[in-house]
């Protein structure tokens, strides 16, 4: 065994050792930083957003939604979690999430329907996509009417895709 052989062997040990140190350190880091991939959000229940008799017929009304939130370690009983557009027809109420299905801007009321101020997606009064980049219609939300109160189940959907997939 020559001195050069020894040197080259030990050099390889150092190289692999350094690599092993890096790998050992990287493993917990990888698990730690990818934690959000293994976490799911809690679906919110029905929350009151308006009185039925306060909603004018055929006029879209914007309401903000409060709900219980689990924000990592914090549990907040009632926080603002989003907004929705309500449309009353007779004693029926339809609701759409105010989140644009394109890339998540806040959809606004527009002539005869809705429009997103960011990338000009335009939707009809029935929430259907008319023009612009949005890949789908506005996201309808579940509504129930109990004792004159309008209750809403607020859901966030993935954006930028044609299908409607809740973010869980």
């Amino acid at each position, binding site marked *: 065994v020559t001195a050069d052989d020894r*040197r080259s062997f030990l050099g390889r040990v150092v190289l692999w*050792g350094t690599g092993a140190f890096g790998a050992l350190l990287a493993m917990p880091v990888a698990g*730690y*930083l990818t934690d959000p991939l293994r976490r799911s959000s809690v679906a919110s229940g029905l929350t009151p957003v308006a009185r039925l008799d306060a909603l004018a017929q055929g006029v879209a009304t914007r309401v903000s939604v409060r709900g219980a939130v*689990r924000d990592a*370690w914090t549990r907040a009983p009632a926080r603002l979690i989003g907004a929705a557009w309500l449309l009353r027809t007779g004693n029926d109420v339809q609701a759409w999430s105010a989140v644009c299905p394109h890339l998540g801007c806040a959809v606004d009321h527009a002539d005869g329907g809705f429009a997103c101020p960011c990338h000009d997606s335009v939707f009809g009064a029935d929430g259907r996509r008319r023009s612009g980049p949005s890949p789908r219609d506005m996201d309808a939300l579940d509504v129930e009417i109990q004792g004159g109160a309008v209750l809403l189940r607020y859901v966030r959907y993935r954006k930028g895709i044609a299908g409607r997939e809740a973010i869980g």
Partner: protein
Amino acid sequence: VTRFRRFLDAVDERTGYRGLLALALDEPIPGGARWAYVFGSALVGVLAIQIVTGLCLMAVYSPSAAAAWGSVWWIENRVTLGWLVRGMHHHAASAMVVVLAAHLLQVAIYGAYKKPREANWLLGIGLLSVTMGLALTGYLLPWDQKGFWATQVATSIAGTVPVIGRSLERLLVGGAEYGTPTLTRFYALHVGVLPASLVLLLVAHVYLFRRHGVTPPASADVSKVGRFHPDQLLRDLAAVFVCLAFAVGMAVRGHGAPLDAPADPSSDYAARPDWYFLFLFQLLKYFDGPLEVVGTVVLPGLAMAWLTLLPWIDRAEGRAIRGRLVPVGSIAVGTLAVVVLTVLAVRDDGGDARLQERFARANALAARANVLASRGIPPEGAQELLARDPQTRGPELFAEHCEACHGLGGWRRPEAKKASDLAGFGSAAWVKALVRDPNAERFFGHTKLRGMEPFAPEDLPDGDLDAVAAHVAGEDSARGRAVFQEKCIGCHLWNGQGRDLGLADGPELRGWASRDWIRGQLLDAAHPSRYGVENEMPRFGDRMDAGELEVLVEFVRTLRSPQE
């Protein structure tokens, strides 16, 4: 392989990385590689662990008084391998202190600070200070009892420094009192100012080290020259692995790092610093009154000054230990003092039964906070977990506000006014005992409420008593209702109706001992529907806030079941 080599050739052609690598690795080591030289490199390895795990912690940690504890709890208990990352960071910090001490001792004993290496010794002292600063700022960040109280001591000591103390303390604390600005300042120091300083000093330190080379011991044969790579580097790497194994091993052993209950400025927590500052804590015990500043500032300051000036104190010609009695002796005495003081501090605490009891109570609170946190932490902050917990806060509030008059299970404060004993309050058994003997000492015997007629078994047979007691305690029955109408309604109210005989103003008993009833009693026991003019119980709405009142209400509700 040849393709990979060709790729590396191409990279080298464009960057010259092999030259740089050779420059870094081919350093000659006169006298050959030694285990004694591993400490510096080991520190660099531990620093790498600290930077990597520290950046991970930063990705979750939230530096505010309301959120800090919760975020650390989340890391420790919920984030994948969060316990390991935090445990490694915590224990590698301990390893860093130990290896730093070893590095300092090695350099001092070898006389490696002597000309021309004085400047590098000063940089080393700077690195020591920065590392101590990192340790000190780090353990406040969880905003738990240990960090909160131990850091109070440290900043209070800063406040005792003559002349500038007041301003110094305020600057460290970020205001008059501990709060979010304290955390944000310590956070900025811990993750920004100090690590940046550490890296800058380290670059200069390594540069000067490479300029001067290693300092072999006086006895070494310097005609034999080793190389940094791989001879020394292999030893260094082994030392780094020992540190990594220690950090991982300790983290696995304790499943992370300790997390005390959330900081509570109103508690009686017994503050102790982390183990590497225990010697300073112990030193303080020997200096009282006006001499205190000697223990807090003067002695540590002198020791630090001595250490800093060691290259100039050591005037010996050579580096052999024999000719360097004063410098080497002073280092030995200093090391011994630190070790002895640390051992004494641990032994004093271990022999103090009262203190151990407090530690045990603190641990129980930490465990309780952990249970409560798993149900979610209120937005107001983790401190509210225990503060709103009837099981934890209830007995404290009861002791503070109720024990001046009320007893509990036959126990009473010696000086207490003699209002009713509340053990079992709210239960049918309590009602039954009261009805048989309302003027007993355990009920109204020593109060103005004295005077309710006792009901003997001839007037009220046991069966009727059982029924009416259950009725009052909330268990509705036809018989109970009937007995109440017959025997009680003459003096008592039920849903606002009653007192038909007009003989006495007995209190409202519908919903007796319910949350509403207890709250009403605490807020206004003199209300006409309660004890009226004969009431002696104060109004507690003025003595605690609404949240605490609810905690006390919940606690009183728990008294109905037998206590252990």
